């Protein structure tokens, strides 16, 4: 009799059936929250696009409810902020571009893993990089850019630096010597602003919501046009490369597995459970999150390593912040 009461006491103390000789049932469900206390989520700053502020706010609230822990957003003003926070373990998860993940992978390897990216309605899981010029520019091709000034987005930008440079090299153009001057604008919207203001002859920025054959509907100039800051008709696209693997949700792999599973499950369920919120956050209708792993970003990882090796062996980016 005493033995049964011992079992009951153990049960009452929260051990479930474990005290009666069976496997612990609740080990994975409660303790990890006490361990984590909060979820730290690194995102890019939203100062240039109000839609992003909505997106982060919605993600924070939604994930906090799903995970059962407060979610604290760490907004960084540049690409490197999220990369370093993730690599150092100061945050638990982040939404970053493929090039950013490649940087993290080079620093800490499998301590950070991709979990989800967007699959668009038509099945693509990528976006594009486009060379934009002003509509009255004499530049009509990449070749016309010889000796001209180019605005990159950021050293860690996939579509605004890494990917187009690799594709230029594939086409026989060495980006470190071909252009007269290169600059880092600091962001995609800033790159379009620099182009609009005449700081450089062309800017290389992300484009999405379509493809080269059908045109694009998302990208910094579209964001700015919706806010009345520019007129889409003022720009012309002269060169497009891609698709580039979409931005990715990553988590630290040394965090509790239930946390990772909940984040992946809750985010994957979002467009189906709450389609209005999905659209409200600027996500495209018909898109959904799909699970990915490191292999999905293998090309970006390879391109980044090659770009760094190229610059170390031969030249430098010769890029500077626009004055």
């Amino acid at each position, binding site marked *: 009799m005493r033995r049964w009461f011992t*079992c009951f006491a153990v049960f009452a103390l929260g051990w479930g059936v474990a005290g009666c000789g069976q496997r612990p049932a609740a080990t*994975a469900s409660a303790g990890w929250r006490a361990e984590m206390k909060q979820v730290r989520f690194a995102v890019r700053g939203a100062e240039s696009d109000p839609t992003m502020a909505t997106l982060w706010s919605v993600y924070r609230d939604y994930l906090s409810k799903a995970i059962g822990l407060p979610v604290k957003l760490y907004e960084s003003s540049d690409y490197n902020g999220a990369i370093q926070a993730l690599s150092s373990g100061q945050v638990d998860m982040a939404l970053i571009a493929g090039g950013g993940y490649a940087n993290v992978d080079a620093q800490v390897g499998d301590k950070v893993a991709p979990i989800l990216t967007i699959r668009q*309605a038509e*099945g693509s899981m990528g976006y594009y990089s486009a060379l934009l010029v002003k509509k009255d520019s004499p530049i009509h091709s990449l070749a016309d850019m010889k000796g001209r000034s180019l605005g990159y987005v950021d050293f860690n930008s996939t579509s605004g630096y890494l990917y187009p440079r690799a594709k230029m090299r594939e086409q026989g153009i060495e980006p470190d010597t071909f252009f007269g001057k290169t600059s880092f604008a600091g962001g995609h919207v800033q790159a379009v602003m620099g182009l609009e203001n005449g700081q450089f002859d062309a800017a290389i920025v992300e484009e999405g919501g379509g493809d080269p054959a059908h045109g694009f509907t998302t990208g910094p100039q579209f964001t700015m046009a919706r806010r009345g800051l520019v007129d889409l008709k003022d720009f012309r696209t002269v060169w497009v490369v891609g698709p580039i693997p979409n931005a990715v949700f990553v988590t630290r792999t040394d965090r509790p597995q239930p946390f990772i599973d909940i984040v992946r499950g809750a985010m994957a369920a979002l467009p189906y459970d709450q389609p209005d919120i999905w659209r409200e956050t600027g996500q495209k209708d018909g898109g*959904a999150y799909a*699970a990915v792993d490191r292999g999905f970003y293998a090309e970006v990882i390879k391109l980044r390593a090659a770009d760094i090796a190229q610059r170390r062996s031969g030249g430098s980016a010769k890029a500077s912040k626009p004055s």
Partner: protein
Amino acid sequence: MRAWLPLAAILSLVALSAQAASLRIAAVTGSAGACHALEAGAPAGETAYFRLLETRLGRDILTCPVVDRAAAAQALASGAVDIAVLDPAAYALVKAKTRAILTVRPIGGLNRIPVVVATKATGPVPDLAALRGKSVVFGGSAQAALAVPRQALADQGAGPGFFSREDVAADANAAAARLRSGAAGVLALNAADWERLCQGERTQDNSCGDLKVIWRGRPRATLALVVRRDIPDELRFRLIGIHVAMHIEAKPAFAWASSWAPQAAEFEPTEAEALALAAR
């Protein structure tokens, strides 16, 4: 006798605890039986699946033999099992108490993208059924532009013969032009094409103010993993999170768990009513 009452109560609590700590999966075997742990000779894929769930959920995973999908649905609704693969007919029996959470995307298949059916805004058109006999135009011949809207319409009872004529325009803009000109009475686009069609250059712009959405919904799933509606969100999200990555993280488990779907590429989440016959 009275002395044994506390023990009986304790035993009941322990039994309830054990039940709550397990995940019971309905298995259509042609005959009913009690839930039990997987037997030693179970297929390797099934064993891998059960081990994966056991490890990730920290619960015992039990298999529960049921006669057929209808019996699985009833067992799910009554609380005798926790998860079952149902078809629309079986789901219809228990839809008040259950919801779909996952289906399978086939190799080469798209997301279950929503479809928009629209007419000109002039004139009252209460619902999809009222469009019978009108002509419909689709926005292209790609899978997302034609096969997906056709499937969604057929799922809603607007399959072959429902419309007087079907046209396939070059793209969404051309299809909308046919609707606006009166050459077609109904426009059927996937939601991504509809969004692009209607997105103006500025935030406040709406290029589709002259059109009216009559119906919007996803193609119905043919089979789905279904749980009770009162399942805690945490368990539902964990189940989804484990399943959507299974094709990457545990291939043998995925092959067995998705064997009810042909050419399975991956699990994908669903809306609650993914198996419902009615308009969503």
